[in-house]
């Protein structure tokens, strides 16, 4: 499959500060790629480079098989949606949608038709004559999406489109965007620092840190096999638990900590295989088995409950075991109180082990 967007050795500096370092990225046709990372890691910068709003320092950007590195934003075949909506305040919704089309000298009847189509898709026909000031946040963002939609382009760029909205509206629009992607089949690049948006929308997620991509993979793979400890901590809430200890290599690798020592049978090592040394044993809260069933796990611990957080659907609890703190996730109906002692079961096959010095997965 030909990539729809391909970024080659991209570098970007603001003055002396290099913000993007030698970035390479191929995005397939019709793919939904999410750029995820903490604030200031360069997500917006990368998106602006793709859109042509920033001049790159080095490298190339190809969209739809063409080298567009020097091309104007409007000639790149992209539509963009911004966090602050960025609607032209003095124009009506219709005027906002038509602005780009008029600039492209598209004949009037076609402009009308495209606006009507976009308005129908996004269910905003009654809003067309209003000014942006007379719209709610959700409606404004819908108009902003419409503005990208009428351009009839193959690539959509979203820069945190939902982060100004309240939780409920966010969830609704998230579903709408996913629906839109399924209907249109466009390539979409979506910047967010909300991991739920990333997990639910993405075909693939690119986790960024400090101007580089740490891992690029499907949401499932990123969740289950994070490449580094940073990725493991970034995805999942509450974050993954880490037991501090060391690996003893050999034919039957073991993990030893001051709490316990156990056999790592069933754990999938990376091709390099186990290496002896200090390591973190990472396990997600929902992979720790609590209660009587823990007896069936390959390895058992005892933990004392410190804190309970009932969420309704689930209950989270923080337990301590031999000086190490762990979060566990239980059924929402679980009846536990602080101070209680719980049997815990760990399964090495569900865990991720990271080297302590390189922080890479073993």
């Amino acid at each position, binding site marked *: 499959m030909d990539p729809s967007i391909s970024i080659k050795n991209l570098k970007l500096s603001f003055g002396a500060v290099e913000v993007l370092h030698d970035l390479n990225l191929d995005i397939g046709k019709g793919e939904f790629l999410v750029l995820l990372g903490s604030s200031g890691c360069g997500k917006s910068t990368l998106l*602006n480079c793709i*859109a*042509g*709003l920033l001049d790159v320092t080095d490298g190339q950007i190809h969209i739809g098989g063409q080298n567009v590195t020097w091309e*104007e*934003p*409007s*000639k790149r075949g*992209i*539509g*963009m949606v*911004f*966090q*602050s909506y*960025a*609607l*032209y*305040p*003095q124009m009506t919704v219709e005027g906002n949608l038509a*602005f*780009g089309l008029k*600039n*492209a000298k598209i004949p009037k009847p076609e402009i009308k038709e495209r606006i009507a189509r976009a308005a129908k898709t996004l269910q905003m026909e009654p809003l067309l004559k209003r000014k942006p000031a007379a719209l709610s946040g959700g409606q404004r963002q819908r108009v902003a999406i419409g*503005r990208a939609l009428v351009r009839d382009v193959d690539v959509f760029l979203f820069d945190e489109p939902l982060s100004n909205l309240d939780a409920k509206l966010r969830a609704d629009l998230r579903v709408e965007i996913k629906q839109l992607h399924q209907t249109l089949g466009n390539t979409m690049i979506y910047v967010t620092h909300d991991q739920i948006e990333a997990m639910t929308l993405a075909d693939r997620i690119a986790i960024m840190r400090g101007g580089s991509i740490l891992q690029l993979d499907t949401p499932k793979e990123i969740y289950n096999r994070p490449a580094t400890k940073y990725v493991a901590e970034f995805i999942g809430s509450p974050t993954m638990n880490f037991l501090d200890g060391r690996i003893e290599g050999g034919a039957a690798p073991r993990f030893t900590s001051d709490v316990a020592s156990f056999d790592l049978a069933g754990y999938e090592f990376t091709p390099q295989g186990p290496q002896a040394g200090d390591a973190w044993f990472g396990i997600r809260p929902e992979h720790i088995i609590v209660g009587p069933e823990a007896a069936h796990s390959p390895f058992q611990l005892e933990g004392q409950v410190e804190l309970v957080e009932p969420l309704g659907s689930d209950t989270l609890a923080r337990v301590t075991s031999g000086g190490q703190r762990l979060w566990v996730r239980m059924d929402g109906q679980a009846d536990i109180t602080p101070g209680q002692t719980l049997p815990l079961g760990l399964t090495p096959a569900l865990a991720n082990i990271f080297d302590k010095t390189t922080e890479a997965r073993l």
Partner: protein
Amino acid sequence: MSDPATMSAAVVGSDAASGALSGPRGPKPRRRFSRRNVFIYGTLIVVALYYLLPLYVMIVTSLKGMPEIRLGNIFAPPVEVTFQPWVKAWSEACTGLNCDGLSRGFWNSVRITVPSVLLSIAIASVNGYALANWRFKGADAFFTILIFGAFIPYQVMLYPIVILLREMGIYGTLGGLVMVHSIFGMPILTLLFRNYFTSLPEELFKAARVDGAGFWQIYLQIMLPMSLPIFVVAMILQVTGIWNDFLFGVVYTKPDLYPMTVQLNNIVNSVQGVKEYNVNMAATLLTGLVPLVIYFVSGKLFVRGIAAGAVKG
């Protein structure tokens, strides 16, 4: 498990009861004559009087006849109101050369102010927009030099500009003066516009670029309609500044083309005959009328524009 439920019900009950009880409730009453209020209002009134008293004296004097003025009580209201001094100031008062009053200076000032204001605002707003949004190569250096220009005293440049204008063949013409005013307004106006345009959301500019709008299109269709307040601020600054200018007017024009301020000076300082205080006062008020009207008409927008520009940049 039923205990907490009853307890919370009891708490709610006692809350409702306390609502009916005495004690502080509603807005806190304020004392009208606290020491603080007396001090604040006292200061404000004194300052207001300080500024209003001269104005009062001027208005009163301009409405009196000369015999009444000779009585010497400058604070007394006019016994017999006369508009003769105003008429004289406008159309009959003598300057050194001619005796057609301030009207000639007024029209000269209009012909100087209107093009200077329009030209300087038009250029400075495009400058500010380019500096804020397009960040062209060398933009920072350009901006620094421009701002530096704002701090050079005018006096230093007076004579070099005379030579410059003479070489260009426009020394002593209205066009030359308009050019000088436009150039000297540039640093502060560019700063004003640049700061205003940087305070507008950057994403709006980016959206317009993705929509294929160019330099002028973004300026005219996106930025201009959002910038009315700052244009009003710039207009007030320029109208008052250029209208009140004396130095450039006297240096760069000829007597026939003197602006109103220069003519006012010539009337007030003319040495022939008796000093007509009432005519002088009327002439001064007439000269100040234009900036005054501008302030009153656009005062609200002025404050809003200043505040908008002050938020960022």
